[in-house]
């Protein structure tokens, strides 16, 4: 898989193997689920101060819906970009506006955090290299987390240029 920029400033990935194209397609849906652990990680409380119970309630009522909308808008942007995945021979290509990079970073992060929370990964497991063979859902989740991290890293480097 190769990351590239066009002279017009658009970004893209080409020579994506089918399995990675499928994993990429799943980015917007990874965090769009009802799971207590995922919910807790994506929407943490603003303070742990025991005297601030009211502030936590207000946060839930007024701030969390805004964050929910922000995350959903990012996922929708990435989902629309991924609908442009094109099959070229044995591989896939996708291209998108550089203005969508913040949405991609946000959605990739949502996906990575949600997968880690859902599968209860600890720091030791996360620091392992990806498995050579996928035999269960948790190994697939680790592959997704690592692959999405590589995409995120490239996008961050692109922003720094």
């Amino acid at each position, binding site marked *: 898989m190769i990351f590239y920029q066009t002279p017009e400033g658009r970004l893209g990935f080409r020579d994506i193997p089918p399995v990675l194209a499928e994993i990429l397609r799943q980015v917007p849906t990874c965090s769009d689920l009802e799971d207590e652990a995922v919910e807790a990680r994506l929407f943490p409380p603003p303070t*742990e101060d025991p005297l601030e119970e009211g502030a936590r309630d207000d946060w839930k009522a007024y701030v969390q819906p805004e964050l929910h909308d922000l995350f959903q808008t990012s996922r929708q942007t990435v989902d629309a970009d991924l609908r442009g995945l094109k099959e070229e021979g044995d591989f896939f290509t996708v291209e998108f506006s550089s203005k969508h990079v913040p949405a991609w970073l*946000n959605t990739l992060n949502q996906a990575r*955090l949600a997968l880690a929370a859902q599968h209860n990964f600890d720091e030791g497991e*996360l620091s392992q290299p990806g498995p050579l063979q996928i035999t269960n859902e948790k190994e697939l989740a680790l592959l997704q987390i690592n692959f999405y991290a590589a995409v995120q890293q490239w996008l961050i480097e692109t922003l720094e240029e």
Partner: protein
Amino acid sequence: MISSNQTETGTSTQDETAVDLPWNVIVHNDPINLMSYVTMVFQKVFGYPKEKAEAHMLEVHEKGRSIVWSGAREHAEHYVQTLHGYLLLATMERGQ
């Protein structure tokens, strides 16, 4: 690596400090967020130069938390919300 004392964090404007006790905005360690991503967020949200953003990121990574900003409560809430928007694990607490 810098320590997490007040002199190393951003501060609010002078007129706020007389009325409000300072609140600290704290970012907690998270094994998922990339170090480069956390640095980028600190630069964007607080306008910190890369060196300062990296110092805070390393403090989060090595010590488990870093006070990234101190000042009026209202602004602290705004920063925590913004950091949550970037999916960082951030909280606010009363300054000592």
